[in-house]
């Protein structure tokens, strides 16, 4: 039986600042709901987007702040297997979050030893099903994937 795939893409360009990031969350929620993405998956994507944009803004350097951030959102469905991909492209310092694994941020043994640094990457890892990254035309391209199943 041929695979039934319905690609759906939404795009948005924002400034690299925390307040314009709010516009991105509204866009993501609207696009995801329009494509019948379950709320639980939207929450996961929302967390990943917030942390990805925070990384760009806080660690991307001047080039990141001076250039727009491009967002793309795709949903694909194939016989009950669903995939939502959120891509974030920025002009900041080269940084590949997909290489981050949980063992690079061991959990602190006590409150006194807790260092909040790196929590954003922990959250992206925990809330996504897959991360992919490439550097192209002097821009970071991070793709965050979440998956779920639906009754065919």
């Amino acid at each position, binding site marked *: 039986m041929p695979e039934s795939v319905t690609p759906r893409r939404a795009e948005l360009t924002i400034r690299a600042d*925390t307040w314009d*990031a709010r516009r991105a*969350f509204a866009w993501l929620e609207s696009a995801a709901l329009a494509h019948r993405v379950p709320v639980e998956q939207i929450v996961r994507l929302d*967390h990943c987007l917030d942390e990805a*944009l*925070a990384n760009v803004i806080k660690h991307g350097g001047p080039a990141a702040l001076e250039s727009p951030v491009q967002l793309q959102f795709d949903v694909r469905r194939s016989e009950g297997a669903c995939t939502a991909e959120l891509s974030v492209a920025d002009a900041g310092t080269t940084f590949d979050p997909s290489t981050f694994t949980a063992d690079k941020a061991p959990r*602190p043994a006590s409150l006194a030893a*807790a260092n*909040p640094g790196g929590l954003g990457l922990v959250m992206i890892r925990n809330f996504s099903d897959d991360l992919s990254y490439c550097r192209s035309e002097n821009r970071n391209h991070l793709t965050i994937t979440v998956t779920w199943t639906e009754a065919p």
Partner: protein
Amino acid sequence: MAIRYEDVNEGVRRIFLSGRLDTAGSEQIAPEFAALTESAGRGVVVHLSDVKFLSSMGIRALIAGAKAQQAKGGRMVLHVAGNEVVARTLEATGIDELIPMFEDEEDAERALRS
């Protein structure tokens, strides 16, 4: 994003957070939250049941507040009251192992007295 508080008996302060604690929202409330945790008596219950979203910046504020309480011999606990989104975030980052998290308000305040 909103923050309010009330002081109750035995030096316990309840801090109520609500809305979206994303990066922007967390930066907005962080100074007031820090001041409230530092000036509290010997215990703080942070109510998170009305928080719609909790980012790493929000968690950073919680950790700073808990450390401030610990430094003065006090304690901070979290009241999540069935907020699964926030509970999952706290568990995913392991923060629930550092700052005790309770479903029930009485249990949260009892923990401060123990």
